[in-house]
């Protein structure tokens, strides 16, 4: 990132997305982080925390911070005992580096967020990012077992531990996962690992919209069966055009197990799939996921003239069907192109908008209302700073909000870290 920054485009980046300043601090150790944070807190300076810099368009309505604290130089594996299946890593390490390192031990961090090449583990944990495989593996809150956090007053606090099962004291890890860096600066993360699957494949089923109902019935049948899908990602026709060169709904079913079991499941799907569905088995699943995970625009690659916006929408599992249909209605009716994929097994959807700024904002607002009215939520994960001001990027606050405010107040009373980045202006 600093290459871009050094070339003088930093101002441009700051202008376009916010959440960063041209005064960047690059601590090289936890101790330095603590020193810097403590000092800032003491003198009332505001810090923006940045790691991989892919999420500058994610939340935040504060035009300027005093300093940016970059975790760019806090990288590397701290500890890895293969037999314990745990790894301790510094926050600035990219997902790709981490996974490649673990691969030699036949292990992995079971998280598949967008942009593994640029996203860092620190950012992924802070934003609670996950991908289609969350269905089987869960999210950061399920894998992070311990952290070291620099508190705004400079204290270094350890949360959790290094063992896979631990209920000593409050589960403090949970507080910092998905907290968008508003409570502390993560300087070390310990994660539970999984063995790399021995064999994997991807089965896609494609249907026209009129057979979407059959596809839903099939998903229910599959869930009621003993098949163990790793993902049940539903892709709308517009995105399918990019991915599969075919403008139909696609269901991506990932399978990971020993080979026999994967083949058995492929056969089961073939036998039970809706009559109107076309089935395809992708041989190179890893390549596919790489392509898939780089679809989403982020603040590192979005310098196009058209405006892009990304939403994360939470619904019930089956709520993804009406959601995607609504997206497609918008595709036809508005001047915005909407690409969407949705986890039918976990209810989390990623929706990518592009078009004219005002149209993008309008569509986002529409989907947000739509999600909230059906009991879910819609948050804006990526959008230029100016446009974010026109939206409530975190959606409605719930009745537990006063507790969140209380927590922020307790830990960071002077709003030193990532001020106004999070829900309700926390």
């Amino acid at each position: 990132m600093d290459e871009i920054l050094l070339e003088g485009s930093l101002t441009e980046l700051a202008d376009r997305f916010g959440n960063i300043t041209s005064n960047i601090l690059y601590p090289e150790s936890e101790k330095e982080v603590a020193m810097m944070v403590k000092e800032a807190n003491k003198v009332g300076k505001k810090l923006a925390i940045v790691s991989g810099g892919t999420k500058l368009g994610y939340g935040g309505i504060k035009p300027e911070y005093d300093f940016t604290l970059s975790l760019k130089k806090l990288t590397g594996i701290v500890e890895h005992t293969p037999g314990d299946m745990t790894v301790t890593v510094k926050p600035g390490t990219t997902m790709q580096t981490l996974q490649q390192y673990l691969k030699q031990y036949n292990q992995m961090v079971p998280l598949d967020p967008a942009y593994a090449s640029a996203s860092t583990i620190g950012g992924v944990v802070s934003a609670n990012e996950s991908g289609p495989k969350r269905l089987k593996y869960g999210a950061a809150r399920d894998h992070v077992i311990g952290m070291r956090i620099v508190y705004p007053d400079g204290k270094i606090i350890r949360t959790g531990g290094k063992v896979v099962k631990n209920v000593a004291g409050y589960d403090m890890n949970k507080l910092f996962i998905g907290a968008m860096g508003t409570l502390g600066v993560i300087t070390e993360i310990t994660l539970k690992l999984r063995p790399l699957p021995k064999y994997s494949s991807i089965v896609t089923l494609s249907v026209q919209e009129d057979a979407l109902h059959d596809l839903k019935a099939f998903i229910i049948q599959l869930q009621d069966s003993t098949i163990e899908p790793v993902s049940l990602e539903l892709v709308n026709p517009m995105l399918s055009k990019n991915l599969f060169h075919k403008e139909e709904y696609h269901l991506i079913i990932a399978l990971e197990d020993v080979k026999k079991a994967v083949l058995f499941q492929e056969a089961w799907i073939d036998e039970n799939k809706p009559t109107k569905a076309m089935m395809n088995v992708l041989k190179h699943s890893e390549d596919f996921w790489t392509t898939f995970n780089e679809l989403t625009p982020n603040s590192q690659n979005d310098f196009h003239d058209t405006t892009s916006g990304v939403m994360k929408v939470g619904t019930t599992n089956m709520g993804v069907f009406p959601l995607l249909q609504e997206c497609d209605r918008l595709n036809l009716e508005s001047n915005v192109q909407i690409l969407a994929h949705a986890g039918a097994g976990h209810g989390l959807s990623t929706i990518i908008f592009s078009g004219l700024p005002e149209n993008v904002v309008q569509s986002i607002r529409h989907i947000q209302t739509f999600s909230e009215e059906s009991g879910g939520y819609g948050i804006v994960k990526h959008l230029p700073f100016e446009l974010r001001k026109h939206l409530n990027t975190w959606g409605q606050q719930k009745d537990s909000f006063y507790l969140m405010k209380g927590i922020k107040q307790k830990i960071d009373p002077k709003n030193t870290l990532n001020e106004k980045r999070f829900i309700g202006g926390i």
Partner: protein
Amino acid sequence: MVLLAKKKKAQIDPDILALTKIVGSKSILHHKEDLLSYDCDGFTIHKAMPKAVIFPKNTDEVAAAVKYCANHAIPFLARGAGTGLSGGAIPLNNEVIISLVKMKNLLSVDYENRKAVVQPGFVNLKLTNSISHKGYYYAPDPSSQYVCTIGGNVAENAGGAHCLKYGVTTNHILGLEVVLPDGEVIEISPNGILDTPGYDILGILTGSEGTLGIVTKITVRILKNPEAKKTVLAYFDRVEDGSHAVSDIISAGIIPAALEMMDQTAIEGVEAGAFPVGHPPDIEALLLIEVDGIAEGIAEQIEQILSVCENHHVRDVKVARDEKERDRWWANRKTGFGAMGAISPDYLVQDGVIPRSKLPEVLKEIRNISKEYSLRIANIFHAGDGNLHPLILFDSRIEGETEKALLAGTACLKACADAGGSITGEHGVGIEKKEEMRFIFSDEELEAQTAIRDVFNPHNLLNQGKLFPTPSRCMDIKKVVNETSLTKST
């Protein structure tokens, strides 16, 4: 119950009257004789009497009772089945106990979206039993699942034998309705939708041992039964061989659904208990290993497991022939703690966790502790995730043994902490391991946690005196021991 009504109503204090008004006269206990049964939970070394026990029937009654207590500065706490092993439901401060056992309904099951909504008093195993006809189950399975409540599971973030593959309670809680210590009722993701924006209140409440709020409704994830299950029982002549087999199974890339270990003393106990299997008395360790998943893939894993066991000089290894045999093995394992009653009048169970790779050396250290305190220690534990359960056997009728047992327990936890582990994997801190929290957390880290408590529970009326060491006192375990032993001397 019939007699309750006949009891004298002389000089009832106003608090009792007020609480009676809230829950009704049939749902409150306040006579000494009735309260006596509530002076401890599954942790019996420390006892204290509550002021009253109330049995609310719905959230409104819980909220009203909490509000009353909050307004009158009366300490209170919530209690489920009272099977906790760390004393989390013991009324140290003469609390009003809010028993949630009457709120025991399964409110709804939504198979399409794979979730169920239960009241806190709903018994863990009943959830699985209620959905098993459709092939679904609820994953967390603490050994007490026959009787323990899901509300209690949330408070303790309960684990279980099958958590190695499927995670503990916190990984299966999707939403909560909570009565906060001021009587306010909040709902967090009641419809079970993931990643509700904001701090993870769900995550911090789960495992907070009833110090942050009282859960009145719980949305949980339900899972589909795996297609096939195979259970392996392996006998080892040497404990070390058993421990190494554990590491090698995991290193082979297999994540068993469960991977349990018992040592010789433990085997003696379970064989003397109600569900003997016929384990040979002269082996040093046994492993109970279960793999599940797609049937086509299981045979391969079983073969691998068998060959790992062979490599580590297993004396005998067998695969359960049928469901009946598997159930027998599990009943034997799951009733293991209680079965210690058959070989010792008292026991103290510890719950340390260590990195798996440290298993051999920590087990050795525990043997040394056993020698040092001349108390027998049985080990029944979740070897797969390094969660040890040393059961320290003692006889409280022998003077000084309780104190010795407590010290031995502390020593076991110290050994776990020193090996880079934790003092509790699933039983919670409660009052039992308060002081031992200092083995793994600094004062500042403990303060960071109590700061969170202050947000939820600013007056500290809810389950006071649990989870955190007493700040004024330095780490003087002996002092604690002396205190606790006083209650046990008859």
